[in-house]
Each structure stands twice: as structure tokens, then as C-alpha cells.
């Protein structure tokens, strides 16, 4: 056995400890409140609704997972293994639906297909009936599939680009044709990537609140919000959260199992399969399908939003919108900066493949991503209220007229919740960068008598630049799109673009969302372009999806 030198300075260990505590303690609050006495409302919900919630949630995540797996893999295989007109543009544009929050797509599609909507009017023009019912489970799944497939696409694409051609070629020289070889060899080797992507999709689906609320689909996040907001039923909300967390736990275990207990440590280097041109009818059909996918996920909704913007900008493009925009920008930038810095410290702590409790602790600090926003909102809220109660004497000492709730009325609570929820994204991205970097540079710096922090700043940060950038972009986009936490935890009278859009939609003023939605989508789209658009060589090497 090779012994390992302990590379963790006390500073980093302490930091990891505190970060972990800050994440785990709020979750314990859920546990504490779970044992409060039951209420009538909870008994009612348990008897009448609980099974429906479980069923609806399961149906929704099952079909969304299935659809994104299919479409994401299809798009990834075509753009990596074939060349055709427009493939370079398509291969980064297919990521763009990530810039479109599911709730915005939901508002737009519901409106387009409504009696006075664009699609219905067009169909009437050519004397066709409009038979689609968008505000249903099927409609919601459709929207989730076309806005979330890029997770699968990015993962599978990265894996395909790494997969050695020798596997498929071995199959050929063993007399197995290319079609069978794809299903017997190429696809099974993509399984970890596919499962990883689908896993994120499922978590995003569970997290959504805006779309299911608008479509009135009774799934968990909707029910939790209802109990908390509309009925003030803390006990019910917490018990529903607990059931939802059990589902999440099952999904986490399922992911582990499906990803496979076998570690594919047999690395085969060498060339990857060269892309071949599409031939015959396929040259038309496949590009058309890909553009259609991009259309459903990005082009059609944004075009419709542009139309709304033209109709309504006179009323909606005003100072209030500017303030909303500035709020979004500042809180997203601030949270992103905090998350990237904390994630970098944690990744630095975790980079030398820690074992045992350290490993478990790091896992725990990145647990937030698996926990749906509704649950985090409640946990953080309860936690902050308790902290405020404890600190009240201090507040009074500082300012005799101080109210009880200070922290929980501040923006700090929202930022804290963002950090909790999106830490894993930043962490994984940076960890991937460290994995590729190896340890030699850092160790070389240590041997040259540089200390930890100076090594981190002088060696690691410059070398990790692209990973840090990727982490920042992805976190920023997620914060900008985030709805449930923002809605519950923002201070009074504090509006971001996302919450403003939600409010317009709640008032059935869908067309008024046009300008705000476009700004939100374009901000994210630009960043996606910067991250994965056509670029100089070498950049992509460090960018791994999550």
C-alpha cells in the first residue's frame, strides 16, 4: 500500500467543516419539525391526495427521463459521428434550450395553443382544428423534454468524443455489423454518461414549480408550495417534503445501481471514430429532426416571445424592469462568485481523493442539488427564523427597536439558499478540472516551497481557468432561471426577472412577459455561446458538463 501524504492544510479542513455544517444543519430542521404532532390538514391530504402526488410525480419523471434520454442521445450521436450541412452550428445551438426555463416555455406554449394563440389562429386559417391540450401532464412532459434534453446531450456527447474507436472497430473485425455494434458496444459504454445526464434531468423536473403550478399538475413541489403558501400549513408542507425526499433518495440509489457497480477502468486510448458524411435521404431527414428539436426547445418559444415583446414593450420596458434586471444581475453575479470560491476551496480539499469521513463530508456538502427547491426553501426559512430568534437579544442590544426577524427578512437568506442548492454544480465542474490537471503541478509548487494558499492562487487558479469559467457560467444560468427559492425567500418588494415573469403569468398577462423573458433567455444564451460556441482549440478540453 502506498501511503499518502496529508496535503490538507488546517485552513482548508476548517473551511470544509464549516461549509458542510452550513448545508447539513438546515436540513436537520426538516427532521426536527417532522416530529411535531399531526394536523387535520395532513390527515386529509394523506388520505385523499398523497397517492396521487406520488403517482403524478413518478409518471412525470419517468416520461421526462425517457424522452430526454432518447432525444439527447440521438442528437449527440448525430452531431459527433456524422458530418452534414450545419453540423457545427447545430452542435452548440442544441445546448441553447438550457437557457429557456421550463415555466417560460410553459407560458408560451399554453398561450400559442390557446383559442386566440398563434398556432390556433394559423390552423384556423387553413381550416384545421387545434386538438392539442397543452396544459396537461403530456404537455408538461413535452416541455420538460425539450428544455432539459441538453443535459443528456452534453453528457453523452462528451462520452462519445472520448470513446475510443477501437471498441467499435473490434466489433467490426469480429464480424458484427455497424448497426449491431452500436447497440452492443457503443451504447452500453455510454451508459454512465447517459444515466448521469438523465439523473440531472430528473432532479430538475422534481425541482420545477413554475410550470406545474401554471398547468395545475398535482405533483409534490406544487403541493408543498400550496400547503406552505396558500394554507400556512407548516406541518403538512414538511411531511410532504419528507415523502419527496424519500423519493429523491430512491432516485439517488437507483442512479448508483444503474450506473453500474463495475468501474470501467480499462482505459483504451487512441483515436476516436471519425465523423462520416450522411448519405441519401438521411442527409435531409436527420438535420430536419435536429432543427425541429432545437425549434421546440428554443427557436419557437423565443420567436413567439419576440412577437409578444413587440406587442407589449411600450408598457413593460420601463424602470421597474430595469431594476428587476439589475436585481437579477447582481444577485446572480454575487451568488455565482461565492459559489465558485467556496467550490474551489472544497475541491482543493477533496482533490487528493480523500477516503472515509472526509469523502462522506464532501458528498454531503454537495447534496443540495438533489434536494428540490421547495424543500430547501422550507429548510432555509425555518433555519433562519430560528437563528433570528436566538440572536434577538443581540439585535436588541445593538438597536433597541430591532424587530425579531432580521436575517430572515434579508437577501442573505436567498443567497444562502442558492449556495446550498447550486454548490454541487460548481463543485463538480471544478473537480473535473482538477481530475484532468492531475497533481504534479501542485506538488511541484509545494516542493518549490510555496504554501497552500499561494499555490492555489498562483498555480491552480490559472490552470483551472476554463473549468472555473464553466462552473461560473452554469451556476449563473441556474441562478438566473431559479424560481421556487426566489419566490419564497426573497425579501418583500424584491423582484427579479424570474419572479416578475411569474407574477405576470399568475395574472394571466402572458404577453407582458415577453421583454423580461427575452432578456432572461438572451443573458443565458450568450453565456452558453461563450462556453460552448465555436471557439479556439484547446478550450473545450477542460469543460465537462457538470
Amino acid at each position, binding site marked *: 500500500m502506498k501511503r499518502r501524504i496529508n496535503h490538507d492544510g488546517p485552513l482548508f479542513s476548517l473551511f470544509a467543516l464549516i461549509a458542510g455544517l452550513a448545508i447539513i444543519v438546515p436540513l436537520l430542521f426538516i427532521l426536527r419539525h417532522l416530529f411535531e404532532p399531526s394536523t387535520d390538514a395532513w390527515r386529509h391530504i394523506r388520505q385523499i391526495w398523497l397517492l396521487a402526488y406520488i403517482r403524478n410525480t413518478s409518471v412525470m419523471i419517468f416520461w421526462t427521463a425517457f424522452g430526454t434520454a432518447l432525444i439527447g442521445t440521438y442528437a449527440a450521436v448525430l452531431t459527433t459521428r456524422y458530418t452534414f450541412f450545419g453540423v457545427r452550428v447545430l452542435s452548440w445551438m442544441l445546448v441553447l434550450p438550457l437557457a429557456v426555463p421550463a415555466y417560460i416555455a410553459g407560458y408560451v406554449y399554453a398561450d400559442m395553443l390557446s383559442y386566440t394563440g398563434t398556432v390556433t389562429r394559423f390552423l384556423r386559417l387553413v381550416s384545421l382544428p387545434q386538438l392539442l391540450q397543452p396544459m396537461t401532464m403530456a404537455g408538461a412532459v413535452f416541455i420538460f423534454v425539450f428544455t432539459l434534453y441538453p443535459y443528456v446531450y452534453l453528457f453523452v456527447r462528451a462520452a462519445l468524443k472520448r470513446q475510443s474507436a477501437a471498441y467499435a472497430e473490434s466489433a467490426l473485425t*469480429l464480424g458484427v455489423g455497424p448497426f449491431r455494434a452500436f447497440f452492443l458496444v457503443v451504447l*452500453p459504454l455510454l451508459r454512465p454518461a447517459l444515466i448521469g445526464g438523465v439523473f440531472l434531468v430528473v432532479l430538475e423536473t422534481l425541482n420545477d414549480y413554475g410550470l406545474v403550478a401554471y398547468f395545475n399538475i398535482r405533483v409534490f413541489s406544487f403541493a408543498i408550495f400550496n400547503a406552505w403558501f396558500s394554507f400556512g400549513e407548516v406541518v403538512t408542507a414538511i411531511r410532504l417534503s419528507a415523502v419527496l425526499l424519500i423519493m429523491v433518495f430512491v432516485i439517488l440509489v437507483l442512479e448508483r445501481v444503474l450506473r453500474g457497480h463495475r468501474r470501467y477502468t*480499462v482505459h483504451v486510448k487512441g483515436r476516436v471514430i471519425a465523423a462520416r458524411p450522411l448519405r441519401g435521404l438521411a442527409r435531409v431527414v436527420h438535420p430536419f429532426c435536429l432543427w425541429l428539436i432545437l425549434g421546440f426547445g428554443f427557436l419557437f418559444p423565443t420567436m413567439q416571445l419576440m412577437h409578444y415583446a413587440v406587442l407589449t414593450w411600450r408598457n413593460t420596458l420601463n424602470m421597474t424592469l430595469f431594476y428587476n434586471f439589475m436585481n437579477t444581475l447582481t444577485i446572480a453575479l454575487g451568488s455565482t462568485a461565492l459559489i465558485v470560491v467556496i467550490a474551489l476551496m472544497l475541491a482543493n480539499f477533496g482533490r487528493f481523493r480523500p477516503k472515509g469521513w472526509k469523502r462522506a463530508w464532501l458528498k454531503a456538502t454537495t447534496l443540495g442539488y438533489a434536494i428540490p427547491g421547495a424543500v430547501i426553501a422550507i429548510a432555509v426559512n425555518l433555519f433562519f427564523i430560528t437563528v433570528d430568534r436566538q440572536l434577538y437579544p443581540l439585535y436588541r442590544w445593538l438597536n433597541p427597536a430591532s424587530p425579531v426577524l432580521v436575517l430572515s427578512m434579508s437577501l442573505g437568506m436567498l443567497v444562502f439558499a442558492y449556495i446550498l442548492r447550486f454548490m454541487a454544480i460548481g463543485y463538480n465542474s471544478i473537480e473535473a478540472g482538477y481530475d484532468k490537471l492531475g497533481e504534479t503541478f501542485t506538488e511541484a509548487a509545494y516542493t518549490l516551497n510555496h504554501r497552500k494558499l499561494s499555490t492555489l492562487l498562483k498555480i491552480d487558479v490559472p490552470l483551472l481557468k476554463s473549468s472555473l469559467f464553466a462552473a461560473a457560467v452554469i451556476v449563473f444560468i441556474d441562478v438566473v432561471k431559479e424560481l421556487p427559492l426566489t419566490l419564497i425567500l426573497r425579501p418583500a418588494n424584491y423582484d427579479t426577472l424570474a419572479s416578475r415573469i411569474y407574477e405576470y403569468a399568475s395574472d394571466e398577462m402572458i404577453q407582458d412577459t415577453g421583454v423580461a423573458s427575452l432578456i432572461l433567455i438572451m443573458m443565458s444564451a450568450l453565456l452558453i455561446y461563450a462556453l460552448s460556441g465555436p471557439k479556439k482549440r484547446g478550450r473545450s478540453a477542460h469543460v465537462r458538463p457538470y
Partner: protein
Amino acid sequence: MYVHIENLSFSYPKTPVLHQLTFTMQKGEILAIIGSSGSGKSTLLRTLSGLEMPACGRIHIAGETVCDTSRCTPADKREVGFVFQDYALFPHRTVAQNIAFGLHKTPRKARQARVDALLEMIAMTGFARRYPHQLSGGQQQRVALARALAPMPKMLLLDEPFSNIDTDLKHTIRLELASLLKKANMTSILVTHDEEDARMLADRVIVLEGGRIVHEERVVRTPRH
């Protein structure tokens, strides 16, 4: 002649690699190809196996023209076995499943018998249910060999089969490989960097430089112990 290659040329887009290669092989002969890095050794094997299309030239194997100016049999119909440099054992399949992979047209009973026979031949009977990552480098190489031999190919191509094996082990494995190939009477081409490998294993050595044959010699072997 069992294998007959005539005027074989190959280029990657903008990079000519092989220039008018001509050589022949007898049934059961082991030919070693040596040459410096980038001389086109791997490319030659890829062209012979059907993974790449030659620009011009003919390839006859076992009395059949598998490639000439008018047509080219694709790799999956050519019945030429290939042992890749990193072996490319399918990591999601067991040793037995790897070996059986090319036997998909063989009836189940016969397939099982063939896999068992091959496992015995490479002296790895107890390893049928292991996964590739649970094997040593030398064991992986033997499994890759068994997998390539399983469908009884007309000839076998090996691309640097020793590159992943420690020098300590290399000597025994080299002898093992030679005796396995001879036992199967398998016409084989073996690519290597190492002249010693070539002389220990092969009946004949071809030296490739810049995509041309610059030297050819028959190996005069002192009888093995």
C-alpha cells in the same frame, strides 16, 4: 500464395501514408513488421482488415479478392481478426462474453464449446466470469487474442501486442504467443517497435520506412528449447 498484396497505397486526406506495397505470405506464416513511429505500420493493418479503404492496389486473402479497384469487402464481412494495441476488450462484458462476441452466428452449444476450448488454450479456464479490468496486462492480451481467434478468421493482425506489458513478463508472453499462433496454424502479421520481438516470434521480418518496404529478411532461428 495464401495472402497476396499488390501495389497497395493509402492516403489520409492530404497525407499519403502507404506507397505501392507488395508482399506475399504463406499459410501459417508469421510476418513481423517493424519500423519507426509514423512509418505506416498501423495504417497497413487497418487497410488489410477493411477498417480503411486503400487508394489503389489489390488484396487477396485465402484465394479471394477482398479488395481491388472496383470493390472492397467491409471489415465486418472480411473475416480478418485484429488485436488492437490496447486490446479494446469490451469493459462491460466478461471474459467469456468477450470471447463469444464474434460467435454471434454460431449456435449456442457450439459457441459455448468454442469459448471453453479457447479459454483452455490460453490457460484461463477459471477466468470466464471476470471482467477485463480484473485482469493483468498479459491476461488481457491473451483474452484479446482468444477473442480474435474465436470466429476462425482467415488471418490475424496484431498491432503492438506487447506495448502494455512489463519487460519482465514480455519474454514468457512472447513465447506463449508464438506457440499459440503456431498451434492454430494462423497466418499472422505482427506490428512491433522492437526488433527482438520480431526475431523471436516471426518467420520473416519486413521493415517499413515512410510507407515503403525498405528491407525484408527471413529469420533464421536457432531451435527453441
